[in-house]
């Protein structure tokens, strides 16, 4: 286990924030590696999706473990309670991380649509999807 203070068989400890962050780090790095190694433009797009998913896991996990509890007064972050800073109109749990994740999903979908349109155009002009062949602006 990478994060030493979390033994697998220590039953009373539930899963904390650490394993989620570690998993997101590995997802991010594999996405980055995909972007760097692949020469197929659509493979690069898949790497971008992996990176965005890693960011989303971070956002939702931090919202669950830190932010929402801190605002509800269960816990504190750093020096003081964050409750006053973020008390909104509704008394329910704050969902900022989840909302950010929703927007990231929307942006990822739009980005994939535009990128695929560009790749189609590229393929029409160069008859290949290899990104190294596109070294001129006007096809």
């Amino acid at each position, binding site marked *: 286990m990478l*994060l030493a203070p979390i033994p697998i068989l220590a*039953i009373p400890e*539930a*899963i*904390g*924030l*650490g*394993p*989620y*962050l570690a998993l997101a*780090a*590995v*997802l991010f*790095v*594999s*996405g980055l*590696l*995909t972007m*760097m*190694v*692949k*020469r*197929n433009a*659509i493979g690069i797009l*898949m*790497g971008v*999706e*992996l990176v965005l*998913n890693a960011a*989303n896991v971070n956002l*939702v*996990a931090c*919202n*669950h*473990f*830190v932010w929402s*509890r*801190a605002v509800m007064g*269960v*816990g*504190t972050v750093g020096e003081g309670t964050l409750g006053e800073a973020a008390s*909104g109109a*509704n008394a329910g*749990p704050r*969902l900022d991380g*989840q909302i950010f994740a*929703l927007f990231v*999903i929307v942006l*990822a*979908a*739009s980005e994939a*649509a*535009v990128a*695929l*349109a560009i790749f*189609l*155009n590229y393929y*029409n002009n160069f008859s290949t*999807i*290899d990104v190294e062949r596109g070294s001129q602006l006007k096809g």
Partner: protein
Amino acid sequence: MNPFAAQFFSELDATALAQKGLFYLCATICLLAAAGVVASRNVIHMAVSLLFTLLGVAGLYFLLNAEFLAAVQLVIYAGGTLILIIFGVMLTSKSPLSQFQPRRWEVIVGGVTAGVLLVGIWLALKSSLPELMRTPGVTAPATGPQYPVRDLGQALLGDYLLPFELASVLLLVVMIGAAYLAKGRRRVEDAPPA
């Protein structure tokens, strides 16, 4: 029953155990599929691996009590974006199994960069995590707060109304832009004589 086992079972919390097991299941699926995305040479195989990564991330959302987000992940990512990518694969290659071999130095540079970044993130996590773990919320019991969809909708139409509306404008722009870009522009030499 020996005392160790007795203590083990007396401390056994079924919810925490199930949560832990499900987390490691989803994490394993995610990591193996992400490794498949990195390692596979075939674009279709990469897309299938990406599908399993997205499913694993949706499972993680379920474990984090974010059911609505898990459903959105399944519907939009696994159902929409991935299908779009697969259409892109099929439209941009003469044979869908075409593949490009990365050069050796590209693999070396990428691997070194990724390794350095991973070690850096791990060190940062390791140095900051004990402090983070001391906050009471982080080591909370398995049954966390529930996030009703009603709260999500109220936040979306309350504090986040402007980004919400901007997202609709963005989607319109993307639709028009993608349709314009993907419309087969006829080349000059292909144009019929006037």
